[in-house]
């Protein structure tokens, strides 16, 4: 039986499968055994209570959904007092995602959230629909560096940084986060999108813009994970379009140490459990004894191709 455990810095996950922030809550315990997950990841929390964005908050598109929730929540005090204890009833490490519009507040929030039952702080610097003028530090290398540096100074908890797929040069941003003290990178959040209804000419979402979620996006995010993995030393958690065990393998081959799952758990509430089981079976069938063997194991140095070798250069 394969050893599925992976290490993200000092934290050991019993397996590389965790939920994605915002697509999960302790209420999932109604459906699956949360103690089987690699980690528990709470919905992004902000300082003040927030209602979130106007409805409708989800619309289907041709090949996926767009959603714009707007980080609703009851604020940090309620979160620490009432929600952290709900998660503390389970054994996997608790990752707490946090967001703010100013660097100072971001760091202060991280500090306040560094309570014993919280195992990891995930800095969500990439919510695409939070606010058009702030909160999305991951679009810029400098903002990312400054923000992560400030947070790092205020907490000793392992610090994961969630990046944005909407950034043009994710490698530089990833390196900035690493240099500023991130312990791991979470790649990536959702793609900023728009749907316009042709029946009434209006945006389909109450917030106008939303994040696109679709298995179709996996090849883009996978490319980002691959590029970043070649340039940083800290572990990567790949998020985007994981719907089956082979997708976990694909992300790990590209260089991820673990994956996060959102959409698949909506479509199949038991998906996270079956993906863990399927991953173990996949490894066992191939004689892979430690899942960590897959990390970065893509064979990209000896491409096989059946046309002219130096083809891209010209005749």
């Amino acid at each position, binding site marked *: 039986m394969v050893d599925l455990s992976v290490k993200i810095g000092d934290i050991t996950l019993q397996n590389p499968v965790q939920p994605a922030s915002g*697509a999960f809550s302790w*209420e999932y315990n*109604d*459906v*699956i055994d949360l103690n089987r997950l690699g980690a528990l990841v709470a919905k992004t929390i902000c300082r003040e209570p927030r209602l979130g964005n106007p409805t409708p*908050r*989800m619309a289907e598109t041709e090949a996926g959904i767009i959603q714009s929730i707007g980080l609703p929540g009851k604020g940090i005090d309620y979160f620490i007092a009432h929600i952290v204890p709900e998660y503390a009833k389970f054994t996997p490490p608790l990752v707490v995602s946090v967001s703010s519009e100013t660097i100072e507040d971001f760091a202060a929030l991280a500090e306040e959230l560094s309570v014993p039952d919280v195992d990891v702080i995930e800095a969500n610097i990439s919510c695409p629909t939070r606010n058009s003028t702030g909160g999305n530090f991951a679009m810029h290398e400098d903002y990312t560096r400054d923000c992560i540096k400030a947070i790092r100074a205020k907490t000793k908890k392992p610090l994961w940084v969630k990046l944005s797929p909407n950034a043009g040069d994710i490698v530089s941003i990833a390196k900035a986060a690493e240099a500023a003290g991130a312990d791991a990178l979470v790649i990536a959040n959702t793609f900023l999108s728009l749907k316009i209804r042709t029946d009434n000419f209006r945006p389909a979402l109450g917030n106008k813009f939303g994040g696109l979620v679709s298995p179709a996006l996996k090849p883009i995010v996978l490319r980002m994970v691959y590029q970043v993995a070649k340039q940083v030393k800290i572990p990567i958690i790949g998020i985007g379009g994981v719907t089956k065990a082979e997708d976990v393998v694909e992300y790990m081959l590209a260089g991820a140490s673990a994956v996060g799952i959102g959409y698949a758990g909506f479509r199949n509430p038991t998906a996270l*459990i079956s993906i863990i*089981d399927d991953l173990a079976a996949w490894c066992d069938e191939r004689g892979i004894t430690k899942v960590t063997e897959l990390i970065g194991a893509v064979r990209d140095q000896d491409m096989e191709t059946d046309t002219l070798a130096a083809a891209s250069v010209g005749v």
Partner: protein
Amino acid sequence: MTLDPNHNYSNAALRIGDVDRYPRRRVGEFIGIVASNAGVNDEYRHIVVKVHEQALKAYAGQMFHLLCPSPDGAEVWMRRPMSVYRVDKAAGAVEFLYKIEGRGTRGMGKLQPGDEFNIAGPLGAGFKLEPAWKNIVVLGRGVGLATLAPLSQLAAEQGVGVTAILSARHQGVVMSKALFEELGARTVTVLDSDGTSAVENVERVIEELIAARKADAFFTCGSNRLLKLTQRLGKKHNIPGQVAMEQIMVCGFGACYVCMRTFEVDGKRVLRRVCREGPVFNMQEAVGW
């Protein structure tokens, strides 16, 4: 042609007879088997799905989240919420009454007896009958009646009298009349076609029921107009009520905060999750839609 499973997705859903490895479960993902799926009238269809016993815990007002098969070879991305219409414990089946609206329900309409159907639930907080209520009034329109129908079953079990006011465009689409009556409810049909569904007439019917002490509580679903009416009459006569609400959903069990509706509680407006705090809410708190 029966579609193969879509191997892009993975699940640990329970099939009939499976041992549940997670007995603390309150909500399940189930792979049921369609027993029948037939048209009820011009617009509505009725599906019976045999399913793992865990699913039979569903009660009136709760819902399932249905993974509708594709009607056309392109993916149907999200589940579709449906109220449980009836739980047939003897047959080990849950039933839904549904209207074909778009792609999801169109795919559902293609299911044949023997096909697999993946459903998740039971979800949400359903109707609650208080012991003090001896006679209730149920008012619904369209598919809203699918949500209200099992209430008559619940009421029958608890010896509560039911008057069901069934509103429809015309006689051809009146629904659930038989089911209500079978379970001992008195039904009143009001139609657009003969004008009886007009608010003034329905108000008159309700006032008569109130006068006759047949209205200890109101239950409604599927019509904003009926909600407004029963809110007004409820306030006037101090009669409590419950309303089942709808909203677009993603997760169905409280994680995503997509399914919000506005409520007014003690003069303050708040948002609540239709899938978790609802779909059944205190009628007087609902703001409507």
